């Protein structure tokens, strides 16, 4: 194993790519016009379906040969009736008895002179069709949207589940996710038309209601029948409530059933944003108020808490119980580090890697570097007034054993920098409590993952701590690879993962998770009615995770599930941390 980094690299906000498509709203600032184009035409029994690029309406004028040019067939001898509306972008024309159109051969095109079809709301006439479109044969089944959400937020958390709510997002920087299913024909998700019922701003002017927003969004990421459209920085949705409508058609030309999604846009002021430019967390191990002693009183293994500081951080005392810290370490393992220091560096490096994964896309940085002390007498100071928050990875939650893995200040909207390395005046301790983590693990059965991972190193169970044998110097530096080398690496890796999950949970609280109540007032915390098992400031969402993984902000964490790479923040919590979803200012 190689020497790890001490400082965890910065996690940067994923930058949205530049606006794709182009065109769209047309006109300069204040303009709200767009010109719909005919993009597909299909035969559906005794009718023709016309699909447009944007929302359209029939003007009321007669549709005749001056409007619609037909090739390879005829609309027949009688006048074509006015088109009828199927959805915002689709019209239906009933054919005369003697019409003769053949799918795959006949073509249609709007002429430059047409005056029968125009943009919705009395807008300009639909454009002439540059290249006549070959009629397809519409099949029997319409596609349906099986997904329409923002930021990949699960249905249950997006205001579309039993918990209701109204998803609130900033004017830009969020994604629109759509997915289509159709048993009879493929659907091109990238061809989704997105309409808003209110004008959306762009650097080139307003995009009017009814204009296809997809033009001004980033080119979609497509996977099968699903597409993700990103709202780039140059586009701004208007504050307030609005409805998005997603439209599409299957490959046969049959319009899909329209889907709608209600959302609320809130200006993303510094006060309501959780991370702003970047949240820095200084992690420390430096609390020393007790020491721990392995015991098997009553046959139940545990760590007795002795209220005597011993000059060793309490966290290391807990690690010593599972052999990751040793009273007489091997000196000079690498770069002047003894075996304890080397293991600690490895552990810190792995914690950093795990936190980086858990907070992917979040403007947060974790460091074990000493950034200094917190302002005297304060546990929370205005966010912009100080450079970082702190969290102690400590020993016990209390002077007597508890089941508490961590405790942190809850900071709605992350308006303050918080000192979770503090022991408060009343005696309440903040931070992550390795005593609980280790004591629980030691109590678990010998066939448990914890025991099988740490028993080879646990002195209380006959194991040999890291650094207790000379060859560990070789093992730590990869000069000797045997079963013990693997056991040591695995123990460090799993301990780091468990610590990282708890750190993520506690830092999550101090960044605003999980505000009680439905969106937009909260993030569905404290709602056991809709999310059974939830408690105040926590949310249990087992149905949204595999059975062997869990939501980081659950009320309780278990060691096995913490190991799963699928364990993480739920989709709404992650969107909040990424500033893609914001709850009301508290």
């Amino acid at each position, binding site marked *: 194993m190689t020497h790890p980094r001490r400082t965890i690299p910065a996690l940067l906000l994923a930058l949205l790519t530049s606006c794709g498509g182009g065109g769209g709203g047309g006109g300069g600032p204040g303009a709200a016009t767009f010109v719909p184009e005919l993009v597909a035409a299909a035969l559906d029994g005794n009718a023709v379906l016309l699909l447009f690029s944007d929302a359209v309406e029939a003007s009321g004028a007669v549709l005749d040969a001056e409007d619609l040019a037909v090739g390879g067939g005829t609309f027949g001898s009688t006048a074509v009736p006015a088109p009828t509306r199927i959805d915002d972008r689709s019209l239906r024309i009933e054919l005369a008895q003697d019409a003769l159109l053949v799918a795959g051969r006949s073509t249609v095109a709007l002429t430059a002179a047409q005056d029968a079809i125009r943009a919705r709301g009395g807008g300009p006439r639909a454009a002439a069709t540059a290249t006549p479109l070959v009629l397809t044969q519409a099949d029997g089944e319409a596609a349906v949207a099986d997904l329409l959400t923002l930021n990949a937020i699960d249905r249950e958390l997006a205001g579309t589940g039993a918990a209701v709510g109204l998803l609130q997002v900033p004017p830009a920087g969020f994604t629109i996710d759509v997915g289509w299913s159709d048993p009879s024909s493929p659907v091109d998700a990238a061809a989704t038309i997105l309409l808003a019922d209110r004008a959306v701003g762009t650097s080139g002017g307003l995009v009017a209601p009814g204009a296809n927003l997809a033009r001004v969004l980033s080119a979609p990421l497509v996977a099968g029948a699903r597409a993700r459209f990103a709202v780039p920085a140059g586009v701004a949705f208007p504050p307030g409530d609005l409805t998005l409508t997603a439209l599409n058609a299957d490959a046969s030309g049959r319009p899909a059933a329209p889907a709608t999604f209600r959302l609320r846009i809130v200006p993303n002021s510094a006060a309501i944003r959780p991370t702003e430019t970047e949240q820095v967390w200084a992690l420390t191990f430096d609390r020393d108020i007790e020491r721990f002693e392995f015991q098997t009183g*009553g*046959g*139940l*293994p545990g760590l007795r808490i002795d209220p005597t500081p011993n000059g060793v951080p309490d966290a290391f005392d807990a690690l010593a119980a599972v052999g990751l810290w040793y009273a007489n370490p091997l000196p000079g393992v690498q770069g002047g580090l003894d075996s304890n220091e080397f293991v600690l560096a490895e552990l810190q490096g792995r914690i950093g*890697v795990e936190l980086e*994964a858990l907070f992917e896309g979040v403007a947060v940085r974790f460091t074990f570097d000493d950034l200094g002390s917190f302002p005297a007498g304060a*546990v*929370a100071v205005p966010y912009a007034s100080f450079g970082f928050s702190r969290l102690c990875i400590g020993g016990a*939650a*209390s*002077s007597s*054993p*508890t*089941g*508490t*893995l961590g*405790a*942190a*200040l*809850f*900071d*709605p909207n992350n308006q*303050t920098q918080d000192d979770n390395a503090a022991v*408060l005046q*009343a*005696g*309440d301790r*903040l931070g992550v409590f390795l005593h*609980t983590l280790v004591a*629980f693990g030691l*109590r*678990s*059965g*010998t*066939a*448990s*993952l914890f025991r*099988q991972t740490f028993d080879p190193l646990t002195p209380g169970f006959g194991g040999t701590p890291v650094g207790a044998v000379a060859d560990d110097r070789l093992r730590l530096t990869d000069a000797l690879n045997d079963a013990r080398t*693997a056991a040591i690496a*695995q123990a460090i*890796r*799993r301990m780091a993962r468990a610590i990282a999950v708890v750190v993520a*949970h*506690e830092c999550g609280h101090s960044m605003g998770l999980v505000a009680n109540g439905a969106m937009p007032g909260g993030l569905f915390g404290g709602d056991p009615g809709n999310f059974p098992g939830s408690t*105040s*400031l*926590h949310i249990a969402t087992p149905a*949204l995770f*595999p*059975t*062997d*993984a869990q939501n980081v902000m659950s*009320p*309780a*964490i*278990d*060691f*096995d599930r913490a190991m799963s*790479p*699928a364990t993480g923040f739920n989709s709404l919590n992650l969107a909040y941390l990424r500033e893609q979803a914001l709850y009301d200012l508290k």
Partner: protein
Amino acid sequence: MRALLLLLSSLAALAPGTPAQLRHAIADAPLVVIARHVGVRPLGNDYFLHRYETAETLKGEAPPTFTIAERKRIADLPQPKPGPDRLLCLRPDRGAADLPASFAPYLIGTGHAGGDPVVDEGPATASFRQLVRVLLESERGRGSSRTAADLVELALRGQGPARVEASEALRERTALRDAISSFGRDDLLLAAVGESEDIERKISLASLCAEAGQKGVVEAMCIALQSVDDPRLARAVGRIARHAHGEGAFAVLEPFLRQARGGVHDRLLLAVGATGTDGALAALLALRSRDGASAALDAALRAHGAPRALEAIGGQEPTEAGGQRR
């Protein structure tokens, strides 16, 4: 006023496979009572004072009334839960020294998940009351054999969370585990095999059987993997095999793996990986070399966790078969 919004939140530890930790709360708390929430009042900007009446004392010497101080600014754990009577596992609240003496004594929970169950007339309550009685009698010196027999009975025929708590209590205490009779072990294995709905219970019972020295657990659970599609069970089978057979774990799993197809084969691969043994690693690497990468093989190697296993799959951490977020 900003500071008033700061609340202390907390996170309970949950042992693997155990939905509740009442047994630990009982062990760690000097006072165990059934109590009635009789009122709450604010105290300044910082506290809610929850008043309780003791209805029944199960451990320690309980005062007739007491207070749990809920911090508004620094809400401590566990949060009091107004409503029906609950079993509470309590300790002195050292952080309440400055609160009004007229509401003393101040107590606080131990923070164990499931450590404050509702007390009602249902069968689950009857079971956890039985669990509490058995554990407290054990604390007072009752013999291991009788305690073990009671816990086995509870693990087999109890209701609600107390079943798994009883099973885990046996797993955690060597003396109790060793005191399980051979009939008890047989019954526990039968229950493990027969459990089809509560996977946590199935795993707990199977693990207990293996840890108690029962023969045939691995074989029985390999057969169970044919009908139970849950990665938790597959991993548990691997760990049980390692516990029971050490480095020989793969040899026990291998015949089942050879005969299995499709999803059952994938689950057995995961079990092989979860043994964490050298033999399993060699077999998985050989399979990957012969058949190429697959999601199931990579999941098995990830479950193995040795550096060589992770290197083989490119050191990648996330996403596995069954590990993709839903």
